[in-house]
């Protein structure tokens, strides 16, 4: 329950429903009867955080233990923060209304680099020192996990530890350790030393980083029995791992307000720009039966009328047709829609489209990512123009009149011809519509192009690449705009300065922590929100801290250079990434994992098992 003080300020802020808690299916326990209190923090607004599947899974998993009470915390919007600071109300968790200082464990999910300032702001709002070294007591312990934990170096000084990889099992082991350390009343230093022994736990303070004169990393030394390399955790069997039977149903509308089901982890495609495609390997599929049963249960406990089958590439799920049959056997009666995000152009079958038509006609979105075949080969997108046209033709004859296409600018080896190729490809899709003899009468076609800016990320074959500078990206955006000749094609693109900053932090090191703290202390927060993004303050922060941001974003690295995340092991062999990187420059593709195992090495994390190989091996 929230406090009287909070209740008094609620009438003064926008969307107070974000700050009250008490939603259906939220978990309230008796705090005197648990051994560990866990505040799960999403460093962005309630609407974003409540849309995130990971928090639902880990919240439910933690609360399935009687000795743990996990609660949720989101970043209060700026108007709420102002009221809270004025009235000295510390940041509180939604279930109990208790301030974060009363918690044993505070966990942040690290979904995107631009949420880093919010982490500092949330700690500060709770009255907790932002740097790990300034927090001497055992609790609260500040931890992080999620995709950005693969290179947490820019925020390493603020955290006590990170959990790498799938969080379901490693969190459990961490809970046990904290509970026993609390009982023994050990020091924080001793706790961290023990924590580093848990597989998948990275305690940054136990690693000494030495730099060369040119500021590149010279050596990373593990101290106090911490492992030389920290290997990420994976869940071996998705059918038996915990999955929530209830989702919290928010009162206010959030971004993704529906049942979400993760049907597989990992991706067989190996697109060279895509970090998620490498980070979440090896491939593990969930059985159609499990998904079907869990989806039905979730619809009954939430009342949601939509299910989204989520994964990095949903049409690659081996049992998709079986699953759709099973789901459609009851969803029509339940008046439940099924959404299939992340479909691919090359295996979008007529049958699949038939299923889609039975559920609800939403927009169709495809991601060719690059405008020319040469560049699509270089990034290993493995999609041909013919496949895209076939899909467009099928969609148009199926009655669709709007298609959305995703592209990226600034990909390695990209030329201005590749940029113009985006407009040409979109034009061909428009032409395909008019070539269709059964096109709906009196209706035009709308092709929307959405272009983002490429950001090189760790653990991808492009981790050594120089990111395009902001000037280069703007000039490419303009070139694209001038290449589009019709109003049937609309173009939207991202702000380049946001991508630039993302590029700096994605491959940054510990020398950036001062920059982040400076920017936050000078007002930066909610950086991924255009209205709040203070780019000038960020530039000032780099200057004041004597850090050249281009060193991180736009510097091409040698394969031999020690990268700031080299002591973290995501199971991907570096030789594999190097060979993929070289193939990109030869415009040479690598077949997807079901055709031929490319030897990335991540199956070794799962005892040699990978669901992409299963069929071909038998």
């Amino acid at each position, binding site marked *: 329950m929230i406090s009287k003080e909070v209740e*008094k300020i609620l*009438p003064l802020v926008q969307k107070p429903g974000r700050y009250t808690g008490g939603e*259906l299916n939220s978990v309230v326990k008796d705090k005197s009867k648990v051994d560990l209190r866990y505040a799960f923090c999403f460093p962005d607004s309630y609407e974003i955080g409540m849309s995130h599947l990971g928090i639902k899974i880990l919240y439910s998993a933690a609360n399935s233990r009687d000795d743990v009470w996990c609660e949720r915390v989101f970043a209060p919007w700026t108007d709420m923060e102002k009221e809270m600071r004025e009235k000295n109300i510390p940041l509180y968790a939604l279930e109990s209304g208790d301030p974060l200082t009363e918690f044993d464990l505070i966990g942040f999910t690290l979904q995107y680099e631009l949420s880093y300032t919010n982490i500092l702001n949330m700690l500060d709002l709770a009255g907790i020192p932002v740097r790990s070294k300034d927090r001497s007591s055992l609790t609260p312990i500040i931890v992080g996990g999620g995709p950005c934990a693969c290179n947490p170096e820019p925020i390493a000084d603020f955290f006590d530890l990170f959990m790498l990889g799938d969080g379901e099992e490693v969190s459990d082991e961490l809970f046990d350790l904290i509970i026993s350390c609390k009982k023994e009343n050990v020091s924080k230093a001793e706790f961290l030393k023990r924590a580093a022994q848990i597989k998948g736990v990275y305690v940054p303070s136990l690693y000494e980083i030495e730099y060369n004169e040119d500021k590149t990393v010279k050596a990373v030394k593990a101290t106090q029995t911490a492992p030389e390399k920290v290997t990420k955790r994976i869940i071996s069997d998705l059918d038996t791992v915990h999955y929530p039977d209830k989702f919290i149903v928010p*009162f206010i509308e959030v971004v993704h307000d529906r049942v979400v089901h993760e049907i597989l982890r990992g991706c067989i495609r190996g697109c060279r720009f895509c970090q998620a495609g490498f980070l979440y390997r090896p491939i593990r599929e969930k059985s159609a039966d499990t998904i079907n049963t869990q989806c039905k249960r979730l619809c009954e406990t939430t*009342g949601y009328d939509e299910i989204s089958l989520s994964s990095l590439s949903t049409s690659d799920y081996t049992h998709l047709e079986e699953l759709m049959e099973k789901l459609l056997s009851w969803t029509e009666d339940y008046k439940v829609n099924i959404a299939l995000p992340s479909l691919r152009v090359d295996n979008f079958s007529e049958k699949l489209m038939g299923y889609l038509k039975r559920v609800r006609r939403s927009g169709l979105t495809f991601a060719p990512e690059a405008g020319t075949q040469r560049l699509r080969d270089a990034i290993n997108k493995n999609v041909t123009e013919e496949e895209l046209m076939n899909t467009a033709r099928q969609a148009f004859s199926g009655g669709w009149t709007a298609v959305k296409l995703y592209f990226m600018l600034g990909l390695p080896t990209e030329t201005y011809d590749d940029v113009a190729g985006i407009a040409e490809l979109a034009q061909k899709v428009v032409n395909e519509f008019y070539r269709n003899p059964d096109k709906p009468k009196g209706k035009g076609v709308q092709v929307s192009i959405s272009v983002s800016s490429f950001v090189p990320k760790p653990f991808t074959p492009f981790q050594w690449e120089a990111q395009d500078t902001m000037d280069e990206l703007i000039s490419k955006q303009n070139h694209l705009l001038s290449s589009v000749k019709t109003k049937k094609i609309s173009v939207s693109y991202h702000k380049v300065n946001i991508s630039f900053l993302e590029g700096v932090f994605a491959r940054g090191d510990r020398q950036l922590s001062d920059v982040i703290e400076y920017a936050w202390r000078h007002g930066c927060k909610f950086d991924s929100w255009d209205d709040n993004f203070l780019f000038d303050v960020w530039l000032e922060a780099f200057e004041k801290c004597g850090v050249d941001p281009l060193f991180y974003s736009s510097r091409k690295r040698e394969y031999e250079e020690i990268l700031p995340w080299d002591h973290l092991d995501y199971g991907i062999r570096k030789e594999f990434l190097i060979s993929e990187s070289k193939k990109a420059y030869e415009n040479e593709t690598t077949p997807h994992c079901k055709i031929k195992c490319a030897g990335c090495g991540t199956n070794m994390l799962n005892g040699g098992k990978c669901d992409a190989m299963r069929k071909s091996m038998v």
Partner: protein
Amino acid sequence: MRCVRVWFKKMGMSRYVSHLDLMRAMTRALRRAKVPLWYTEGYNPHPYITFALPLSLGMESLCESMDMRIEGDSTNEEIFAMLKDNMPPGIEIIKVSDPVFDPKKITFGEFDIFFDCEGNSDKIVGLINGMLSQDELIVQKLGKKGRHKVLKDINLIEFIKDYSVSSFGERVKVSVILPAGSTTNVNPSLLADEIQKRADGIAYTLIRKQLLTEGMEQFA
């Protein structure tokens, strides 16, 4: 297919659920309860649900009602039994009945305003009685002028049908009957804000107690 009226209280934290969000929350509750809803037969079938008179954000209520269309021959008692354990926290089903009045018949609302007086109860009672016994109490109301929203001066006294002021302990209660409905509507927060302004910003809570027809019959 028939129409039923579901009566519920909206108390506690659920007062921060806006009208639009309530619509969504109730639709989900009906689905969880497996109420045999009648769905519209258009391109995108949806249940047919309307609320008698939307409640302002932040106000509690003892007298909310929602009309919906159901299929089959479930009785009102059966629908009540399905609903009562499936509501989101803060929303409590009171009863299910056949609609008597058209929601358009709603003309007045009775509200209680509670002020937290922290030891100043007598002074605040005096202040409120003083305010309400004048001929004029001018406040600004956001109104429409064509397409534009403009602030209009209105004399609250003209709209107050009835009122009483009482105090118990630290709290002062103002009960007031004001026009409510689709033609004339005066939000009790106009009065509450004015009192708050004149009493050093004391905190208040608002609750809608009942809705009345033109003939002062309880809306049913």
